[in-house]
């Protein structure tokens, strides 16, 4: 048993330098006809300014700093577009900001929408200096709202793959995720990761949730506790997290030879304000 554990840990320690965080291209586009016509050539200036604002808002500590948010990178595999659109309402049209996600595997329907001009509101759709600050205010307010950020996490951020493999430590039964703590910046008390995978032999889907990500700098990642595990006959969680009998079964059903297409994503996130701590104590000097 000890020899097996050592082998796993040797493998962990031999992990090469970690890849960059996943890239997301974020941009603001104006599609609402009234604004496209009204703003004319200044539309691109407004779009650029709002794209930069979105970028800043996505990167802040209260948002999702564990992702590499970029702008104007057509090669980025994930994209978040905030579009100004119109739809019929009342006797006129109302204008909304609609968030649209695109991943490698496709685009879910946009569910995050907020009306920014009611049908009877004055818009001054031809004045960039009126439209831009109005929309900036709306976007800032959205990102300041904890409920909006939770929705954005659910709709978009939780779909982005942070790592495509994990390793089970057969001794501690913790799961190693190859994303450095300095990149994940996740508070261990609230943050939660989801791992999805498929059985190699039968393609059966499996999933686990991981909590308490703790820095494991020597291998360039974090070690997490398993909160729930659901794969074939093995199903446990969330409380108690891992019983002794389950603990023995895990290595028999989960490992690089048994599962494929592993995806690690962030499902709950809180920024870690005091790095390298656990319960207020420092883990390193």
């Amino acid at each position: 048993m000890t020899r097996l554990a050592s082998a796993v840990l040797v493998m962990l320690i031999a992990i090469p330098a970690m890849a960059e965080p996943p890239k997301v291209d974020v941009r603001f586009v104006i599609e609402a006809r009234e604004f496209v016509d009204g703003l004319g050539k200044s539309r691109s200036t407004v779009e650029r300014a709002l794209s930069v604002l979105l970028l800043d808002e996505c990167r802040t500590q209260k948002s999702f700093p564990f992702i590499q948010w970029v702008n104007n990178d057509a090669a980025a595999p994930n994209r978040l577009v905030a579009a100004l659109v119109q739809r019929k309402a009342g006797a006129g049209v109302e204008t909304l900001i609609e968030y649209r996600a695109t991943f490698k595997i496709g685009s879910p329907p946009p569910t995050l929408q907020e009306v920014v001009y009611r049908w009877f509101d004055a818009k001054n759709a031809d004045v960039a200096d009126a439209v831009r600050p109005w929309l900036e205010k709306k976007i800032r307010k959205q990102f300041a709202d904890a409920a909006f950020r939770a929705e954005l996490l659910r709709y978009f951020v939780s779909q982005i793959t942070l790592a495509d493999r994990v390793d089970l430590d057969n001794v501690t039964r913790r799961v190693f995720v190859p994303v450095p703590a300095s990149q994940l910046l996740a508070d261990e008390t609230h943050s939660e990761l989801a791992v999805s995978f498929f059985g190699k032999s039968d393609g059966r889907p499996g999933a686990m949730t991981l909590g308490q990500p703790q820095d494991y700098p020597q291998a360039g990642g974090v070690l997490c506790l398993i909160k729930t595990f659901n794969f074939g006959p093995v199903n446990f969680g969330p409380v108690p997290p891992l019983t002794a009998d389950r603990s023995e079964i895990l290595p028999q059903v989960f490992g690089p030879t048994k599962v494929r297409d592993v995806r690690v994503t962030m499902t709950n996130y809180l920024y870690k304000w005091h790095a390298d701590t656990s319960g207020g104590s420092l883990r390193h000097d």
Partner: protein
Amino acid sequence: MRTIVALAVLIAAAAAAQPLAIGPSIRDARKSLDAGRTAEALAALEAIDKSQASNRDQARLWFYTARAHEDLGDEQSAAADYTRAIDLEPTYGAAMNNLAQLLVRRGDAARAATLLKTAAALDDPRHLLYVDNYAAAAEKAGDIAAARTAYAEVAIAQPDNVAAQLNAIRTLDDPLRMAAALAKLSNRGEPAAVESLALDLLAKPFDARGKRALLGVVAGALARQHVAPQRFDAHPAATRLAALRADPLLAGGIDEILLLMHGEVDAARYSWWRSPHDDRFGALIKDLGASWTGAGEKAKAEACYKLALDYAGGRDADAFVELADLYFAQKRLADLDALAQTYERPMFAETIAARDYGAEYRFHVALGTMYAYLERWGDEGNPTSAIFQLRQAQRAAADYNRELKWGQKISVDPKTIELLAAGYAKVNKGDRAVALRIDSAVAYAADGRKTAANGVLAPLRAEPSLIADASYRQRYDEVTETLTKPMSIDITINFPDFIDVKLTSSGEARLSDLPRPTLQGIQNALSTFVTGDSEDERDRAEYKLLQLGVLNLTAATMSRSSGDFEVVVGGKTVKCHYAVTVQ
């Protein structure tokens, strides 16, 4: 050969004088610790020969040995190890911090606080962690004043750290200050956390005024979370509010919140929240209206907006517009008219008295647009008509722009002009329509708004014969000529070179009685408040003022040019006034 031997001897002698480097061994032990192989790590650490190591290395060795003992649950040995580390390295902040955390767990918060205070005074990049932990230890040790100051330092340094904000608020000594800070945090997007803390604080033995202020925070937080009435009973606040009903200072207010959430819309049932009036309860009523609108329950939504208007004494432009939109959607013209006739006067009295022309402009545009779509064109003397409302919108914008010292003016929307001109044409005031189009086009062109100018002139281009008046014909020709040329706009923006913020005080105590850093903080935050470019920047400045103990900050008493607030100094209230002068 002799030289080489001599050199070798020298190197050996030098090596003997140097302490033995044990860094690599510590690194190996750290790896095992981080991997969760604690026993292995401890064995490795204990096997390292400390006798030849420097004090620093020995101290580090004890630090990691302490960590291993902690992980194994041996807190006594861990405490002894951390103590040894600190004895060897008296400025070892990390060891002080961890020992203090252990001491707190073991019930010795006072000693922990002393250690953390020392750590926080070090020049260490983990300063904020030490301050945060010091605050918690001081609070546990009963030194609330020290905890309050320390929590405030963390909260100011990390404005987006919600836990830090809540700690800073929780340890304030005045429920009114707590309520003001909580309201601000709720407005900054954290209503759920605010609601939870406000409900905790309501259980404390505060006076009636304090409890009322905190219950107002709960009402506001419920509104901001858009808790649908259908799901209220499952919301955490439902049970917690019910549990607080036994408190006679709160029972009336809680009963009325519960009544409201369960659908009661009889205005006579809401007396507790009327004495005095609280905008946050009004916001909760309106939010319920929005929930019912979203659920397609028009009658319930209407009842809520009517209640909101009644609660505000007819002076709630948002509730008015929502109600008007509901009537419009159902083509209930008589109700829309009755609404306008009933509330027009109190609404305008309020907005004009407060010089809130921006809100008045939005109100008139909304109502005017609705009447225009209903083709109720009317005239300038009839409040239940498009022409009256859209003209009032123009007037409110002009008043606003005239009052504005600096900042962005209200530009009258070309769509408003279009609707008003259409109205004039419909009531056979074709000349007024033509004049309005041409005057507006001239104004838009002067601002470089070619699209807007061309838009309002389009009907005249299609039918130039509409322009009967010779002088307007000439203006039309001039403006159309201007619009064919490339636009060159000269804008002179007069930014003030300097501004002075003069702060004066009156009342039981003086500003100079305030501690110097607090007064400096108030002055800095105040100057950011009056000069801040973005609303966010001003919001943060206002929040900082609240954290520094400033009270009664409201939009009604504070502007970019002057304002009033209060600060409590040694239990006495200082009334402050600031005035901005532009140089």
